[in-house]
């Protein structure tokens, strides 16, 4: 988005883990980051563990992993992690006393809603993370619609205030897709600006719904990245203006620049 980014200290720094919380299928890691600036909602960090980053399944992980910040308070950063591979598995093992290595905050954040529009947060799965800090910054009142696979994942819903929840299997909340809740909401009042983060198919459904109704949307995308600061050129996503590096021009993009939110290789 167009707001000025908060720049990262130059280099990778060590951050002591202060808490490991289990929320069903997710882990929230908190770390102390006294040297870092306060991130903007939607910005991300490259994370790795200070020890045993490597030597896991297939001798991985090797590259750091990108995570939107879930929350930032009292000089602590919170991250939401789901074990979906060798990097996230290692991060989920970390406990207080262990050290995280991080670079960030990186990328661009969400910007305030346009004149006359109220924020509406729409999240899916681990993608609810940047919506939590954004809801905090908006004053805690912004309505949140969250979609999850099942009850184990829906346990993450407690990280936002007063969410409406949908699950694929109907075990919690609405039985169906979060975009169905979103359609209901837009039918009632579409003077909103949508802030969304989630799996590619969900983001594409949000983008398409918003485009059809002329509702502005800011989408936080995901793409595999090696560095997070524009060096590797690996994280490009197609836009109406050509390929852009998501780590520099995103991860938050105005939905209007996208023809699709489905990016080859994104998701997990």
């Amino acid at each position, binding site marked *: 988005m167009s707001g000025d*980014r908060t720049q990262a200290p*130059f280099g*990778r720094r060590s951050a002591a883990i202060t808490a490991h919380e289990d929320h069903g299928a997710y882990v929230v890691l908190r770390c102390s980051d006294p040297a870092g600036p306060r991130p903007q909602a939607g910005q991300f960090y490259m994370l790795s563990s200070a020890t045993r980053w490597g030597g896991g399944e297939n001798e991985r992980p*090797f590259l750091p992993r990108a995570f939107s910040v879930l929350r930032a308070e009292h000089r602590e950063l919170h991250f939401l992690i789901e074990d979906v591979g060798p990097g996230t598995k290692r991060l989920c093992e970390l406990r207080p006393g262990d050290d995280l290595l991080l670079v960030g905050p990186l990328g661009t954040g969400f910007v305030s809603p346009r004149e006359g529009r109220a924020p509406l947060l729409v999240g899916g799965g681990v993608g609810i993370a940047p919506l939590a800090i954004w809801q905090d910054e908006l004053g805690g009142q912004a309505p949140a619609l969250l979609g999850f696979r099942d009850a184990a994942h829906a346990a993450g819903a407690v990280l936002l205030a007063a969410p409406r929840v949908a699950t694929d299997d109907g075990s919690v909340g609405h039985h169906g897709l979060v975009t169905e809740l979103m359609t209901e909401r837009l039918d009632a009042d579409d003077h909103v600006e949508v802030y969304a983060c989630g799996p590619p198919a969900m983001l594409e459904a949000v983008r398409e719904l918003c485009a059809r109704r002329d509702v502005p949307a800011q989408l936080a995308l995901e793409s595999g990245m090696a560095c997070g*600061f524009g060096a590797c050129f690996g994280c490009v996503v197609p836009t109406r203006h050509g*390929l852009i590096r998501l780590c520099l021009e995103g991860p938050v993009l105005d939905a209007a620049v996208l023809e699709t939110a489905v990016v080859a*290789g994104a998701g997990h």
Partner: protein
Amino acid sequence: MTTLDFCGIALEHPIINGSGTFDAIAAHRAFGDELLERFPFAAFVSKTVTLEPRQGNPPPRLWEVPAGMINSIGLPNKGLEGYLAEDLPRLAQLPAPLIVNVMGFTREQVAELVTAFSAREEVAALELNVSCPNVETGLVMGADPDEVAALLERVRPLTDKPLIVKLTPNASDVAAVASAAQQAGASALSLINTLRGMALDPRSGSPWLGGTTGGVSGPAVRAIALAQVQAVSQATNIPLIGMGGVQSGRDALDLIRAGADLVAVGTESFRDPVAGSRIAAELAALLQTTEPVKTW
């Protein structure tokens, strides 16, 4: 501060970056002026410039492999005109000499690029990326001694600036290519570029990368780099820039002992943007220490 001389360029230490592994303009956006105050490289090698703009390969462009990564980026760049107008003025502000990496699909294209940069005083040296096919002969310029010699014979007379040839490891006899490059007037050689590799989508079993194959880098290739640097060092007597999976001062020292004069850091900068400074400091300390090293 003591300096070292590389082809007439004074450098503060022997650690530079590999082309295409650090975008100083992007890093300045991410990190601000701290990048300039603590610039990690003794010289900055910019990403490959081609005559015409290139968008690069479609995503996905990356995959993680054991102890490394594979990339299929496809040399996106603004083209010569865009680089001269937008990038060169900014890169000239860096607190380190600038080495511009260029690539052409014909000898004439390389000649045009060399001529254009030869006229720019902001440019300390040129590095020739010869890892692509010559579309007129079908041969990879850097994989064949005669090809590389013919290229150097065409472009060497066009500039007084140092010409560094970036060798590809995907050649049957890298030392023969290196020797041909030296005889045809190369000022220095850099190696290794990435090794050709492939990754499969774990779900579909089809190629993961948008470009089908890609280049492998990181510690996975370090032992190969060491062997190639040694082979090239024995076959030539011009300065060498060694690179390939360097993560520590120890790794840099190994390449120097194998014959490198400078060492470039690439993939490790993705993991830690100040890796270059750390490695330079570790190398300086190692060169002064007499402590025994660990083996097994």
